[in-house]
């Protein structure tokens, strides 16, 4: 078990490094560097950008050094000081801008996964044990439809319906009154009233996928001889289903974290634009549009690390649940 964990952990590190290299390449990719853009920015606002100042800045950010040194410095800054670089659009350190937004992204993704599980688990079991029943058919169909609707479109339609028919503004995370208020019970309740919209929107397609996974796996498992063995021992049907096949079908369910999380993070990015949520999505788009690459790159790095962490967590949970993996 511990060996397995260590293996996975060791795998996590090179993966992170690869992502950091990709990110750094992306940051460096647009023509011109940050100082050039800064100079243009200064000139545009009518200020003089002296050569001396630019040179000093270049030195300060190490831009006069070879690229790989710059990469190591950048990575070192992240590891030692959580220094992700400087956002030129906001003229502030990237770190200041993203932490609370990242927290919202994580929260929404996390809640969605939980919600998805709560829905998909019983429906999947029921569909599999009542294969070809009306219930099964309707959920299979709904699953297809759910998987086929882009989440941002769903968010758009929901916003429109809410506004056109109920006069509700479903966007944002807080009502006007609470937006800048300090945290309180009332503000928390208000947040919950808004939070369900993105959670429901995001969970539609992942729930559809998970139900199908659960159903397919369970159907496979229900045909396995050990189910017949359990039945021949005199177990009641529901006891048997819950103890054996569901337990085994749990594996793909858990490993779904690994691929659902990237989907959710991805989905959060885009629906946050529609629902105007304070996640990393809007700020990432804005930074990309203005080529504020340190900000954009850092967001990508953090989101990617997040989803890779998800893979790691799902590996651990799998090992906990399945002795075949643990004892290998």
């Amino acid at each position: 078990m511990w060996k397995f964990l260590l293996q996975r952990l060791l795998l996590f590190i090179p993966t992170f490094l690869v992502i950091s290299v990709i990110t750094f390449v992306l940051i460096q990719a647009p023509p011109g560097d940050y100082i050039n853009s800064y100079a243009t920015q200064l000139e545009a606002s009518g200020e003089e950008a002296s050569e001396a100042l630019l040179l000093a800045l270049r030195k300060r950010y190490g831009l006069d050094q070879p690229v790989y040194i710059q990469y190591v410095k950048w990575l070192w800054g992240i590891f030692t000081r959580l220094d992700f670089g400087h956002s030129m659009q906001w003229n502030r350190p990237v770190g200041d801008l993203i932490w609370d937004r990242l927290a919202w992204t994580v929260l929404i993704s996390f809640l969605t996964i939980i919600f998805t599980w709560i829905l998909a688990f019983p429906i999947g079991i029921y569909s599999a044990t009542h294969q070809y029943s009306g219930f099964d058919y309707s959920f299979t169909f709904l699953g297809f439809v759910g998987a086929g609707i882009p989440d941002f479109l769903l968010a758009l339609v929901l916003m429109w319906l809410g506004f056109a028919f109920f006069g509700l503004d479903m966007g944002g995370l807080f009502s006007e009154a609470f937006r800048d208020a300090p945290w309180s019970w009332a503000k928390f309740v208000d947040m919950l009233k808004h939070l369900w919209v993105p959670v429901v929107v995001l969970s539609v397609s992942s729930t559809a996928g998970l139900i199908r996974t659960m159903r397919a796996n369970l159907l496979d498992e229900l045909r396995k001889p050990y189910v017949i063995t359990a039945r021949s021992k005199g177990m009641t049907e529901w006891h048997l289903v819950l103890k054996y096949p569901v337990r085994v079908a749990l594996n793909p369910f858990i490993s779904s974290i690994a691929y659902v999380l990237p989907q959710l993070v991805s989905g959060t990015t885009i629906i946050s634009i529609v629902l105007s949520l304070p996640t990393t999505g809007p700020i990432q788009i804005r930074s990309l549009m203005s080529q504020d690459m340190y900000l954009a790159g850092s967001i990508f790095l953090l989101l990617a690390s997040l989803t890779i962490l998800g893979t790691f967590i799902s590996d651990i949970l799998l090992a906990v649940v399945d002795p075949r993996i643990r004892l290998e």
Partner: protein
Amino acid sequence: MDPGILIDIQHLHTNFYLREGVVKAVNGASLTIAKGRTLGVVGESGCGKSVTAQSILQIVPRPGRIESGDILLHIAEGDLDETINITDLNPGDPLMRDIRGSRISMIFQEPMTSFSPVHTVGNQLEETIKLHQPKSGDEAPARVLDMLRRVGIANPERNVEAYPHQLSGGMRQRAMIAMALMLEPSLLIADEPTTALDVTTEAQILALMRDMQSELHMAIMFITHDLGVIAEMADDVAVMYLGRVVEKAPVRAIFHSPKHPYLQALLESIPRIQKRTGARLQAIEGVVPNPLDVPPGCPFHLRCPDFMPGVCDEVVPPDVTVDEGHTVACHLYTE
């Protein structure tokens, strides 16, 4: 009912309702299992031998269903003496659940997949006790260890904690037998229990089953397609073809005076050492008919060398007693 009889199956029909049509997997089979004796059920794949066994336990998988017929189970324990007709019970009936695993238990062909891969062997064995004797709580682990020892599993204290994938094939089948015998059933159904094992392990498992039988005085219904194993294990034999029992006899009679043309052909097709070299192995003509479309009359008439037109393809042959305890369903022997 004859007091020596444990199970009496009469005219059992078990059908599978597929999209393509109805498969009559068991099509009017009748057989009896005597107390403490071994009945070998032999036939090629698809003849209905496994489904007959599943019908006894009422665990026929969907879309299969027992259509009609009787399966009488005779229970005689101390003062208790009663006969239950299993086909009268629902698969989910508490009485039926009570019979499964305690009075009749079953072992399967694939010892690997017949255990849940994510629970320990001990957990799955103990469960059998807890299901039927919920008050047995504390003594269950000790009984599990004892049974593992009796079926010859080395180091039971350690292996009880093992997961199935950590045991060898032979060990798994021993554990399977331990689980089935946990509550000392009066009938053990063994559905090709050694098919997946190598020859040496097969011999060990067969020996173990015989030992356990003499220890626990239980009956065994031994299902196989291997006539060699039948010769070794069975006291009585039932030969099945296409959902029907075509011949029933004590094991000696089966090998020394086979009556049904199918059984005769089957025995002919076994390679023999004393036969002269260079002779071709005899195969049965034709193929087993499509089970969706069973021919009228005798199920074997399409392949039978003694086919009598107008009789065999029209009338289902009744059971004819040719000797004591020896019956055959064939028109060659009808008056």
